[in-house]
């Protein structure tokens, strides 16, 4: 049923996935290919803003009332996932409090690139999804990080004033500002305004995502050998958890009244791990956490898994659940 070889094969016809692999290979063969400093940041700004804009524009044509239940589900899942993961990681897998919290912050939050990839795959398959999903993406960026830091309370190396700073930083991080800012601009400008900027933000989106994934591949490749350091338990965790999260996501999506397409996107968000807000917050709030664990989990295991196999699995799982329920 879940034909994994076929999924992998399918994803190998995606220029984005292939660009990601090229990046990894380039690092493995020790090529001098390196993106100029600033290009990663520039591409990130473009992608976040473009997702916001497109989402906002779709949202302006959607009815907001349908948004309330999925919105609540999104927040709920961002509280449940980090708590569950934190206990799993500390009690069962023997991670220290601070490392467990760091990993939970990452897996509880979401990945913008994984979101882009699932929307491209749905578009290709002709499956519709709710226009407000970028807003859900924005909602899911922060809460899990807060929950995870709360769980690490005692290990949290910040005093009261710094805690306030940290909260502030989380809610004003560039991911949030660009996504929500983009959504609002997309909603306010209307069709005429959107048409002016569409050739760049929509027309070029996939091409630029492809370039971005090449760079993500270069970074992932550099961290690939950390896999040997982290041991098999993190690997198994990183492949199992996304699927579990996706199933929770599909069920919650169904309960919230999302369409099958919406459920696939939501499941993918649940299964994805953050790489913008979470690493930045963890570096400041939990400087004792070992990046080898949280970066490897988020970037080297979960991200490629979702990109190549995960999303196809979630599409099939959603189809299964939506056809029997």
């Amino acid at each position: 049923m879940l034909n994994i070889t076929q999924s992998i094969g399918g994803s190998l016809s995606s220029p984005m996935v292939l660009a990601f692999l090229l990046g990894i290979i380039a690092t493995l063969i020790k090529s001098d290919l390196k993106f100029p400093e600033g290009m990663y940041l520039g591409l990130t700004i473009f992608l976040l803003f473009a997702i916001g804009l497109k989402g906002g524009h779709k949202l302006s044509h959607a009815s907001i009332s349908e948004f309330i239940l999925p919105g609540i589900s999104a927040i709920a899942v961002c509280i449940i996932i980090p708590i569950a993961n934190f206990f799993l990681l500390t009690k069962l897998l023997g991670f220290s409090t601070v490392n467990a919290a760091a990993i939970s912050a990452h897996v509880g939050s979401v990945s913008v690139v994984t979101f882009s990839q699932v929307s491209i795959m749905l578009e290709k398959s002709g499956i519709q999804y709710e226009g407000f999903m970028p807003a859900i993406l924005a909602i899911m960026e922060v809460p899990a990080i807060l929950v995870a830091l709360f769980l690490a309370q005692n290990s949290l190396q910040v005093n009261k004033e710094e805690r306030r700073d940290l909260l502030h930083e989380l809610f004003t991080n560039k991911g949030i500002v660009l996504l929500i800012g983009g959504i609002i601009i997309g909603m306010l400008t209307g069709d005429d305004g959107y048409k002016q900027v569409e050739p760049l933000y929509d027309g070029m989106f996939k091409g630029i995502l492809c370039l971005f994934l090449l760079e993500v591949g270069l970074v992932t490749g550099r961290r690939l050998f950390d896999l040997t350091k982290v041991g098999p338990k993190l690997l198994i965790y990183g492949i199992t958890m996304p699927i579990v999260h996706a199933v929770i996501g599909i069920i919650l999506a169904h309960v919230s009244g999302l369409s099958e397409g919406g459920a696939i996107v939501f499941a993918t968000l649940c299964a994805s791990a953050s790489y913008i807000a979470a690493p930045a917050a963890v570096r400041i709030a939990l400087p004792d956490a070992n990046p080898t664990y949280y970066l490897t989990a988020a970037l080297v295991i979960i991200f490629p898994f979702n990109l190549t196999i995960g999303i196809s699995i979630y599409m099939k799982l959603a189809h299964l659940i939506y056809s029997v329920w």
Partner: protein
Amino acid sequence: MVKLVPLKMVTIIALDALQHKLIADIKNCGSKGYTVAEVEGEGIHSKHFTDWEGRNVRIETLVTEEIADKIMQTISEKYFDRYSIVAFVSTVEVLRKEKFA
């Protein structure tokens, strides 16, 4: 002839996310100026070569010996135990000491 007088240069290398806090600290200690450069690096704790790992900044401030001591004391107390940070003092010579004192 120019008359050079000795002064202290404090150099701090740290995570770029700490930049604003560090600058506030050195201003509090009495520094009247500073210069910031973007750098990458590797130390005991971690690598700082990609945006995932967080890049570093190198902050330099030219100050009197007294202020230099104060800065070293402050940042050693506030950051040394908890963050990847390197700081050192060197002696340089300037022309117009008033500007920095």
